[in-house]
């Protein structure tokens, strides 16, 4: 690594690594101040960008704060110069990945994806265990389905998130949708891998996934996770016909095809997932589904939609812990204070981080986190 001196050529290296708007930054400080992570952690986005512009390589690349970005995109959405700070941080990470300078937990996650197609490093043959007792078609069985349900890694392997996959599959079955899953052939979508900065591995995943989808003649995809949705929609070399499940169910709601058999007397709030909201501007669809559930009383958190606060599960943060108060803990307290009994989520990472925060804040029994799929199942979804 080069010495800690001004080196104007470094900025070019960063630009080549993907941060092509690095030099547009005028150091206004919006990125640092709006950062849901940085205001509580060591991440100083503006400072990092300035050092990168000046070529203070060592200072930039040894900055542990780089791994604390959740890639929530708040800074990118608010940057008055449109310099895309998120992409700058990802590009800096990619330089570290190239040199092998990554936290061990991140390295393990990358290895897991490389070897087994998931960041938890669990063997491939267990990927579809969650579905073993459900009536589900597998793409490998042949015969074309209308829809491919792309499950994603967390809902495949994490015991809590598996319940969401089961709920989603149950809901699709209740609606009589002709769908299939990739089963053990499914691999990581690569969204987090890109955000971690391992763009080489991301390219391999993208290529493999595209050829797998082509091989099974997949035309239309629904995902559990906004992260997979984002990868397929925005990060692959060609954009796929993909919907997040909230969009899929919101469309059916509009068409009047969704009916519920039970009432749900609960006050529900909603945590906007960054990769659904801030990255893809999808805010109304999840709310439409919740508001359509009979008896459910919907309340907004004090900051929501574009002002929502990230759960700190994205951008590789599932594998990088930061000591101290978590954003979700404050968020849970807010949800309790507005009288919510359920924090509805639409992302497996939000599900897991909020589940934790409810426990660490001692709010178990007072409030629970549920995926929208679980709400829909509980309300007794019936096809009209």
């Amino acid at each position, binding site marked *: 690594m080069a010495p800690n001196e001004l080196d104007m050529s470094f900025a070019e290296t960063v630009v080549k690594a993907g941060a092509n708007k690095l030099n547009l930054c005028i150091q206004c*400080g919006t990125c640092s*101040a*709006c950062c849901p992570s940085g*205001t509580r952690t060591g991440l*100083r986005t*503006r400072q990092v960008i300035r050092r990168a512009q000046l070529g203070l390589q060592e200072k930039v690349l040894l900055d542990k704060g780089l791994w604390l970005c959740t890639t929530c995109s708040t800074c990118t959405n*608010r940057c*008055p*110069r449109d310099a895309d700070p998120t992409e700058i941080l990802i590009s800096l990470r990619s330089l570290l990945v190239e040199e092998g300078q990554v936290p061990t937990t991140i390295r393990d996650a990358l290895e897991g994806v490389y070897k087994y197609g998931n960041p938890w490093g669990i063997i491939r043959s267990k990927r579809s265990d969650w579905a073993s007792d459900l009536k589900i078609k597998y793409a490998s069985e042949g015969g074309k389905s209308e829809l491919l349900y792309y499950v994603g890694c967390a809902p495949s392997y994490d015991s809590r998130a598996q319940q969401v996959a089961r709920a989603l599959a149950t809901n699709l079955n209740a609606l009589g949708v002709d769908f299939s899953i990739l089963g053990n052939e499914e691999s990581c979508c690569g969204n987090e891998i890109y955000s971690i900065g391992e763009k080489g591995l991301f390219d391999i995943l993208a290529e493999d996934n595209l050829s797998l989808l082509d091989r099974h003649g997949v035309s239309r995809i629904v995902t559990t996770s906004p992260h997979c949705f984002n990868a397929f929609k925005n990060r692959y070399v060609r954009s796929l016909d993909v919907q997040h499940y909230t969009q899929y169910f919101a469309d059916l709601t509009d068409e009047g095809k969704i009916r519920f058999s039970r009432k749900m007397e609960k006050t529900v709030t909603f945590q906007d997932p960054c990769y659904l909201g801030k990255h893809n501007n999808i805010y109304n669809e999840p709310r439409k589904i919740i508001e359509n559930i009979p008896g459910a009383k919907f309340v907004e958190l004090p900051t929501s*939609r574009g002002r929502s606060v990230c759960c700190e599960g994205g951008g590789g943060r599932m594998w990088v812990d930061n000591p101290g108060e978590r954003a979700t803990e404050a968020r849970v307290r807010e949800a309790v204070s507005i009288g919510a009994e359920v924090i509805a989520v639409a992302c497996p990472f939000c599900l897991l981080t909020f589940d934790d925060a409810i426990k660490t804040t001692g709010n178990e029994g007072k409030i629970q986190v549920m995926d929208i799929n679980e709400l829909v199942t509980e309300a007794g979804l019936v096809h009209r």
Partner: protein
Amino acid sequence: MVKAGMVIGGGISGVQCALDLADQGYVVYLIEKNPSIGGKMAQLDKTFPTLDCAACIMTPKMVDAGRHPNIRLLAYSEIREIKKDGDVFKVKIVRKPRYVDETKCTGCGQCALHCPVEVRSEFDEGLGVRRAIYVPFPQAVPLIYTIDKESCIDCGLCEKMCQAKAVDRSQQPKEVEIEVGAIVVSTGYELFDARSKEEYGYGIYPNVITGLASERLLSASGPTGGHIVRPSDGRIPESVAFIQCVGSRDEKSGNLYCSRVCCMYATKEAMLLKEHVPDIDVTVFYMDVRAYGKGFEEFYQRAKHEFGIKYVRGRVAEITEDPHTENLYLKAENTETGEFFEQEADMVVLSAGLVSPKNDNLPKWLPIPIGDDGFFVSSNPKADPVTTKMEGVFIAGVTEGPKDIPDSVIQASAAAMKASTFLKE
């Protein structure tokens, strides 16, 4: 060639231009869509960098324009069509119905005194109220009352109270046709709609207001008589924060340009706040302070050193509100020290930028090039900044791009000169 001109828009630029052109002996039609001329300047309390009273400059000019033998003032009127026939512009103008006979109304105000309907006053930026029959402000020119039909409940009290028998609720729009040889466009600007910057909570948090609203709070003729109170509870704020570049120099709003007046108007308003409430704590959050004009840098230095106004270099990333106190919390980074902070403020003023008005049809009738910033482009921004590609059409004021009052007046006089030369040929 018809030896008459038309000025579209009756703000400071349009009024100045009409006066100069009329003084040279030409008949000038001054068209204003609102009930009174005066534009944005009439709403201002003081002007920078001299802290002169804005109304004391503006209203005499308005009165002059209203009385000038060569100026035909068509207020509360909108252009319906402009057609060029040889070197003559044939213009159709709709005189919107005021439901008050202009020839009879004496401006006594008895009607408004008895009108039972209260409506948020546009002139006071929604901070005060007016009646359904109203003049926007007491110095309005022409001083003729207008019924806002959308709010009127047709109770007929105004008609009963009017001794001049001027109220005529059956009035219809009237179309007039004029012919002119030259046109000056001075349609000014609209304030950037700060609601689109959701992180600032404008339109949601009552104590987040715009710079123009704060002018009305500061003005002795404003809704509070010049008392500085915050909208939510009428309490005198102990701390006020200004946020600069709201909708200016901002890719996300699509406005890449600097609005050129906000640094100075915020500085001015900050000084005036200090004059009104000496103990008040005022902080201005900025990206750059652009004090480029004559006397501006000195003005800025005075604000810092004489008035004790704090300037923090850091763009505020977000405002949140404590729903109980309705106080505001501003998140920012002081980029000079690298320190994050959350600052509490009783009231926040957003220095909203200047955007081009939605001139729906004007560009269709007068195909003058429009720049990426939405403002009209002159035929040569350096050597000929008031002439346009369309012969006989000139531009003045903010319609050509954001500028302050002195620059607007200079350009207005220049446009009058160019128009009169053109009419003479």
